[in-house]
């Protein structure tokens, strides 16, 4: 069983490494088209609506890691389990790691960027309409508006925490192109980082009614020597009457004063 698992992992790595970023764009839709039993909207698109969550340790560390006081052990979500830093960027990543407690903007409860918001350990809700897919996140009430009406990214330079998202359907895969980031968010708590030149392409493909194959291509020539990919499964929250609650962590230190102290 264990050996078989390793074999599958190796196969997946080999497959992913043989793919160029361009031809990788067909992978998701190929997989999705194999699944006939997926919910569809009235316009025939796969219906991603619902509440989802990634159950993994990617927010702790994108790469495979042992258990530590920082959290549980976990499988890596990066193809090849390696992030192709440029040499000078690798040095910065090591500094980030050393100062992770103070440098990670998650500690200040800032908007965590894309794709990190997807694998924060909180549920999120997709509201899919024909012209715009809105994603509502329990974490700090973050919202993304993924326009699927053919509109282009606004002209930059723009530096947003969550970037600007424009989506399109390639077969049964929702492909979201995200640009206009700032350089202040990380990918995880170990200091994996990017610059404002970050370009993210997310691919959401329903595997069946309750699972999304989520694949992300990361491109940032200032920090990485080549594009690289992460991939994970997003799971539908199936509990009856499940709904998003809230986690506005930046407010915790002020709550005691409101509406009035002691009230």
């Amino acid at each position: 069983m264990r050996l078989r698992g390793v074999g599958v992992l190796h196969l997946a790595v080999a497959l992913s490494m043989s793919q160029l970023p361009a031809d990788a764009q067909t992978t998701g839709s190929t997989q999705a088209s194999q699944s006939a039993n997926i919910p569809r909207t009235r316009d025939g698109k796969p219906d991603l609506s619902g509440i989802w969550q990634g159950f993994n340790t990617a927010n702790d560390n994108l790469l495979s890691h042992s258990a530590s006081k920082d959290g549980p052990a976990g499988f890596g979500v990066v193809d090849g389990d390696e992030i192709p830093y440029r040499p000078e960027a690798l040095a910065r990543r090591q500094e980030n790691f050393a100062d992770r407690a103070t440098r990670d903007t998650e500690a200040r409860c800032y908007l965590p960027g894309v794709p990190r918001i997807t694998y924060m350990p909180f549920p999120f809700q997709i509201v899919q309409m024909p012209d715009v897919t809105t994603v509502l996140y329990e974490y700090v009430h973050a919202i993304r508006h993924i326009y699927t009406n053919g509109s282009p990214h606004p002209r930059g330079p723009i530096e947003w925490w969550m970037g600007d998202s424009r989506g399109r359907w390639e077969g049964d895969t929702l492909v979201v192109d995200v640009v206009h980031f700032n350089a202040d968010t990380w990918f995880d708590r170990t200091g994996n980082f990017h610059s404002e030149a970050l370009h993210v392409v997310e691919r959401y493909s329903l595997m069946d009614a309750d699972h999304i194959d989520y694949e992300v291509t990361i491109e940032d020539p200032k920090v990485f020597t080549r594009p690289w990919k992460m991939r994970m499964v997003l799971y539908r929250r199936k509990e009856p009457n499940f709904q998003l609650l809230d986690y506005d962590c930046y407010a915790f230190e002020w709550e005691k004063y409101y509406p009035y102290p002691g009230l």
Partner: protein
Amino acid sequence: MRLQQTMRALTIGAAFVWMSASLSGQGAAPQRPAPKPWPPTLTPDGQPDVQGSWRPVIGGTHSLDPAKSGAADFEERITGVVKPNPSRIVDPPDGHIPYQPWAAALQKELAAVYENPTKPEHIDTQTRCLVPGVPRMYYFPTFRILQPPGSVVFVWDEYHVFRVIPLDGRPHVAANVKLWMGDGRGRWEGNTLIVDTTNLNAKSRLDVVGDFFSDKAHIVERFIFVDANTMNYEATITDPDVFTRPWTMRVAQRRMPDAEMWEWACHEGERDAAHTSSKISDSDTEKK
């Protein structure tokens, strides 16, 4: 000292005005709203289709009684000319919030010091970038209504908050779960959406001058769609711990062009709450 503080308030106020102006102007080129049919068409699940962008006709959260924005208050203080603004409160008929005496005293005390805060709690929640909550989100910024099958979704760019209101009659979440935007359950009666809202954490005040309710509050909201471009928002607030009787506010809303919503990050850039007064100590000092 006083002048210095006023200047600070001015700067912050101006920054807010600039922010809202630039934000609202940023999206795709403004277009006239396409004429919407009235009576409304129905969504596939049978809801009156009221989707699109809406905004209060008179926005502002400086005070409810009278209805006044921060900018209007600012103008009054500069010019000395007090404009007769009606109260947002339509019941009781006198337009005043029916506070119990102790609660009225708390609010009056806050209203007297908000300009020159000396304690952390004197600073309005909105200045701290905290979620303004329900009903406050309905009397200043633009919001978008989405109607996926089985629910009504409200989305704001300001404070990046949202509400998902299920229409299936499910029960509220457990009473010990308190939420910034409360827990809403909706139903349509004709062209009126009625939302029963509980589980409010009540951390957001109702306005800058300290109006408030407690986490025992129960709000019944009515979104009364009058024609294709007009909606009246009414919120009836019951809270026996704070008020002598239920009371109702009304905010007229109009349809806006469907502009894109762009990122609004307040907390991430927040530097000024602690600078609104040099007299504030406690933990509310320069932190960033």
